[in-house]
């Protein structure tokens, strides 16, 4: 058996950070701590993307998840709650049945992952992916790409309409 390479050790560290902070999101009794450990998960997942030779997606992950969604989530947490009152702000119910469902799902999936014979090819050496992704977006995936911009526009307008203050006519 050959020893662990630097890449393997780094992968283990990154995977550990990802899973531990995901556990922090799931089990933390305080919603603010949950939100901050979500940042660890997002950064860890971005690092996993780098390991998977997906440089562009990793940067997009950092920009959109960490820079956008996480900040939005933190804003919502701060705006909506009496944060000091943890008992109200992050109640959890049904822990035991949920843990059983978790264990069941994990068991079935681990059996599937380890049992399946994945047909893999030797991973190519990492190369910049932006060229290929750009070609895909403007070629094969042009229609979904355009639809995505329509969806984003609808989401933008919808969010503005939903969160504005109602002005009542006197």
């Amino acid at each position, binding site marked *: *058996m*050959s020893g662990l390479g630097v*890449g393997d050790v780094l992968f283990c560290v990154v995977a550990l950070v*990802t*899973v531990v902070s*995901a556990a922090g*999101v*799931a089990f933390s009794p305080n*919603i603010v701590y*949950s*939100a901050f450990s*979500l940042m660890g*998960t*997002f950064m860890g*997942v971005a690092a*996993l*993307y780098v*390991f*998977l*030779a*997906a440089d*562009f*997606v990793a940067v*997009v*992950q950092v920009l*959109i*998840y960490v820079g956008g*969604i996480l900040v*939005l989530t933190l804003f*919502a947490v701060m705006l*909506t*709650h009496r944060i000091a009152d943890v008992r*109200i702000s*992050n109640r*959890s*119910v*049904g822990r035991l049945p*949920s843990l059983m469902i*978790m264990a069941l*799902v994990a068991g079935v*999936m*681990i059996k599937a*992952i380890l049992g399946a014979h*994945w047909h*893999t090819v030797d991973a*190519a050496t990492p190369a910049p*992916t932006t060229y*290929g*992704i750009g070609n*895909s*977006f403007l070629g094969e*995936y042009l229609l979904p790409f355009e639809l*995505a911009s329509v*969806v984003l526009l609808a*989401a933008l307008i*919808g*969010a*503005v309409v*939903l*969160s504005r203050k109602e002005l009542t006519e006197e």
Partner: protein
Amino acid sequence: MSVGLSHYLIVSLLVFVLGLYCVLTRRNAIGILMGVELVLNSANINYLAFARYSSGGYDGQVFAIFVIMLAAAEAAIGLAIVLGIYQTFQTIDVEATETLRG
């Protein structure tokens, strides 16, 4: 032993079940949305892992970008709805907001 496809799948599985637990147990609407983000991230890890260890096209990465885009739209709309609920009910506990229950 070197890192292979199944390692990524197992990391993704762990993130998925933790997100599932988050969705099932949280009673705070924002906590539930965080669980959904975890589930979406685990799906993305799977997409990129299969893209890396299969024929080597860009389809998996393109799908991952679409998922990230939809997650951003979902977060914006979801949090706007949560803020609206808070303005109406003064709480975002999903068990307190059951006016529509028959």
